[in-house]
């Protein structure tokens, strides 16, 4: 932004004045347009006055030419209207033309009658010179000439056109007030038109009154037309214009002319007397009533005179109105200028105040800062500035705070510099120590680096081991959990087993008892069978002996031998049965003994089992407790192992970092060793710098 850069280059005063200029710019523009408008109004009014000046001889010319013609027509020595002879009237016309020629280069040029302007408007015949040429032609012509009356009429038309142009070019329509408009209508249109019509009417009427034949019907009709035209187009319009002008002037906001109504009222009254009188004659003539020619002529003359005088006075009053208007505009213009000037002065004063209260203190503060820049910290910001409530006050307070802080700081710096000087000497000796120490460090760093590598490797192994341990622990924990469950089941089962074995033991005891009873019974049976065996044996023996006896007896003993044989057979059957019983009993006894043995074995086994089961139950109980402890401890161990694992990982990381750091340390130590000499030289330089700093700090005035 070039504009912002430009504003950065400006001082505060310049900026403020630039702001003032920008503030004044619209004011100036408004002022200019106002002034321009006022000036245009004044110019318009001035031009209107000039037009009036040019108009005045033209109106008189209309009247004078009319007088000349009426006078010439009658051939009388005296004019009909003003009672003067034609020659006198002609001289008056000449004088008026001379006046007009005189006015043309000055006033005429002002209102558009210089030859160049007329040529542009293609109105060359309306210049003073060509119209005068026309007048001279009319004058030299005889009144009896055929076109004499028409030529006069043409001349009057030219004059009236000139009057109109003089009025038109004054920019009358631009006047905001209506009174000037109606007055100008009177001066530049109506009066000239009225004079022209009066001339036409008098040229028509007066010769016919002198005829002996009287007025024809056509003449009467024409006179009636003249009367009506004069009444409506001239008289009513003129009086109406004036009445309106009076009213408007009284209402005019600025530039009302107090003389307008008093000056014109008597003239208007005379006009209002003269015109109706003429009209009454004309009316009478039109109705065929004979009128005295002289009366009619006089009433024409009076009407023309009254019209001319009213016209002239109206022009004069219009001038006055315009002058009053010019005065009002000038007055207003002056007030505008004065008001603008005062407003500007007040604004300038306030800006001056603003600049004064900002730029002045700022310059002071800047001067103070310049002093600080040169090292003079002894000055204080004026207390008046510090007490201010605006930004200057804030700035001053901050500057003061800064000054105090700077003073303290410079003192501190001085002390510090002295210390620095002292320290630089120490540093010099320390740098020597550093050089040797750093080479030591490098050496040790090598050792540490090797150790750290080793440690890193070891930690890696440990880490691997720890993760395995963690895995194993997890497995063991799972197994222990399962084992706890199994032990619980075993405990239940062993309790059941203990109960069953106790029952079995009891039953075995009972079975043993039963078997022993059975054994006893078998033994008793055995004794019985032995007795029977004994008996059968004896019986057998007895039978044997009987047989033998029978055999010895020979044939006599044959029957006996049969009986003996029978007995022996019985004894043998008994013996066989007994033997069978005995064998069975023996089997029973053996079975019983074996059963007892077995039952005892079973009993023993059961009691052993019972004992074992009890032992197992106790052991399982302990085992369960132990397992729970193990489980808890395993949890702890697992947690510990995990922690240890993470520690190991950390230490692995740390050891790696140590290894890396040690490398860095080694490098640093080498650099330190390398830069030890540099440091010594730097320390020397530092001592020199410290001296310089002492010098520099001494330069500050505190």
């Amino acid at each position, binding site marked *: 932004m070039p504009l912002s850069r430009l504003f950065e280059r400006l001082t505060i005063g310049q900026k403020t004045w630039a702001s003032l200029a920008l503030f004044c710019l619209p004011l100036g523009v408004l002022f200019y347009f106002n002034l321009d408008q006022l000036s245009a109004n004044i110019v318009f009014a001035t031009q209107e006055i000039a037009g009036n000046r040019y108009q005045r001889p033209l109106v008189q010319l209309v009247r004078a030419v009319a007088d000349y013609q009426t006078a010439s027509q009658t051939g009388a020595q005296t004019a009909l209207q003003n009672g003067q002879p034609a020659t006198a009237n002609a001289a008056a016309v000449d004088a008026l033309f001379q006046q007009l020629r005189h006015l043309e280069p000055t006033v005429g040029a002002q209102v558009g009658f210089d030859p160049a302007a007329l040529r542009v408007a293609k109105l060359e015949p309306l210049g003073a010179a060509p119209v005068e040429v026309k007048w001279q032609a009319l004058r030299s012509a005889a009144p009896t000439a055929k076109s004499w009356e028409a030529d006069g009429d043409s001349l009057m038309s030219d004059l009236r056109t000139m009057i109109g142009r003089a009025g038109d070019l004054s920019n009358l329509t631009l006047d905001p007030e209506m009174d000037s408009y109606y007055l100008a209508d009177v001066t530049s249109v109506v009066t000239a038109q009225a004079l022209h019509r009066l001339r036409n009417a008098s040229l028509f009427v007066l010769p016919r009154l002198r005829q002996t034949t009287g007025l024809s019907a056509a003449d009467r009709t024409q006179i009636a037309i003249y009367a009506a035209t004069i009444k409506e187009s001239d008289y009513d319009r003129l009086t109406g214009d004036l009445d309106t002008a009076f009213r408007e002037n009284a209402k005019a906001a600025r530039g009302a002319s107090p003389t307008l109504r008093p000056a014109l009222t008597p003239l208007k009254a005379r006009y209002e007397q003269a015109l109706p009188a003429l009209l009454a004659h004309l009316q009478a003539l039109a109705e065929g009533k004979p009128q005295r020619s002289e009366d009619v002529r006089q009433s024409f003359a009076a009407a023309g005179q009254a019209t001319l005088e009213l016209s002239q006075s109206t022009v004069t009053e219009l001038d006055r109105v315009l002058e009053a208007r010019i005065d009002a505009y000038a007055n207003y213009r002056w007030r505008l200028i004065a008001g603008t000037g005062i407003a500007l002065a007040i604004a300038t004063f306030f800006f001056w105040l603003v600049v004064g209260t900002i730029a002045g203190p700022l310059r002071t503060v800047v001067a103070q800062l310049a002093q600080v820049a040169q090292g003079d910290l002894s000055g204080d910001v004026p207390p008046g500035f510090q007490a201010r409530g605006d930004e200057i006050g804030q700035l001053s307070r901050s500057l003061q705070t800064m000054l105090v802080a700077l003073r303290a700081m410079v003192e501190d710096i001085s002390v510090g510099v002295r210390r620095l000087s002292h320290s630089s000497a120490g540093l010099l000796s320390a740098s020597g120590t550093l050089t040797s120490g750093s080479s030591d460090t490098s050496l040790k760093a090598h050792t540490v680096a090797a150790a750290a590598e080793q440690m890193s490797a070891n930690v890696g192994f440990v880490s691997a081991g720890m993760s395995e341990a963690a895995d194993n622990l997890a497995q063991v924990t799972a197994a222990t959990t399962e084992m706890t469950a199994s032990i619980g089941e075993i405990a239940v089962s062993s309790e059941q087993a203990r109960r069953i074995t106790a029952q079995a033991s009891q039953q075995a005891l009972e079975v043993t008892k039963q078997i022993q009873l059975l054994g006893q019974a078998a033994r008793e049976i055995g004794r019985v069978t032995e007795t029977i065996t004994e008996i059968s*044996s*004896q019986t057998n*023996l007895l039978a*044997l*002996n009987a*047989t*033998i*006896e029978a*055999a*010895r007896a*020979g044939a006599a003993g044959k029957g006996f031998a049969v009986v003996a044989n029978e007995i*022996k057979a019985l004894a043998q059957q008994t013996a066989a049965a007994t033997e069978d019983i005995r064998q069975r009993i023996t089997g029973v006894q053996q079975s019983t003994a074996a059963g007892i043995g077995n039952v005892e074995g079973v009993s023993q086994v059961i009691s052993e089992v019972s004992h074992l089961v009890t032992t197992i139950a106790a052991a399982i109980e302990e085992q369960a407790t132990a397992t729970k402890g193990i489980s808890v401890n395993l949890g702890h161990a697992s947690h510990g192992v995990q922690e240890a694992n993470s520690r190991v990982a950390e230490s692995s990381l740390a050891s790696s970092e140590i290894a890396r750091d040690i490398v860095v340390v080694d490098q640093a130590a080498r650099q330190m060793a390398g830069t030890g000499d540099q440091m010594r030289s730097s320390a020397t330089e530092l001592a020199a710098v410290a001296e310089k700093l002492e010098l520099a700090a001494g330069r500050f005035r505190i």
Partner: protein
Amino acid sequence: MNATQPEITTLLATFFLGESAFALNAGVVQEVIRLDAVTPVRHSPPEVAGVINLRGRIVTLLDTGLILGAQPARRDRDSRILVMEDRGEFLGLLVDRMGEVIEAEPETSAPLPANIPPAQARFFSGVCRSGGRVLTLLNPVELLNGVRS
């Protein structure tokens, strides 16, 4: 009585020593008794087991096993004593156990096998079969004489 003349139907009392079966003419046997209390006789030959009191009579008890050159006879519940009378004197033959009293079948008789030693051979008169087993027939005269000598 004449022991060498067997009757038409001869009854044989069989007995056992160990596993060996022997037979003796039932006619020469007074009676068969059980082994009871035996009173030993001092200085007697080993074949004499002692003396027993049989209803007031003294019976000399001989160990048949030893007489026949075999093992001594067992002395238990099955032990039996075959009581015989020889000229007013009562002898008892101790055997392991008694067998049946059977009828002799001459057609089955056979001489002694030749391998019997001569010292014992005089006590045997031959062998015979009975019930599928071989019985050795004893000569009661030689047996009694042998005991006397």
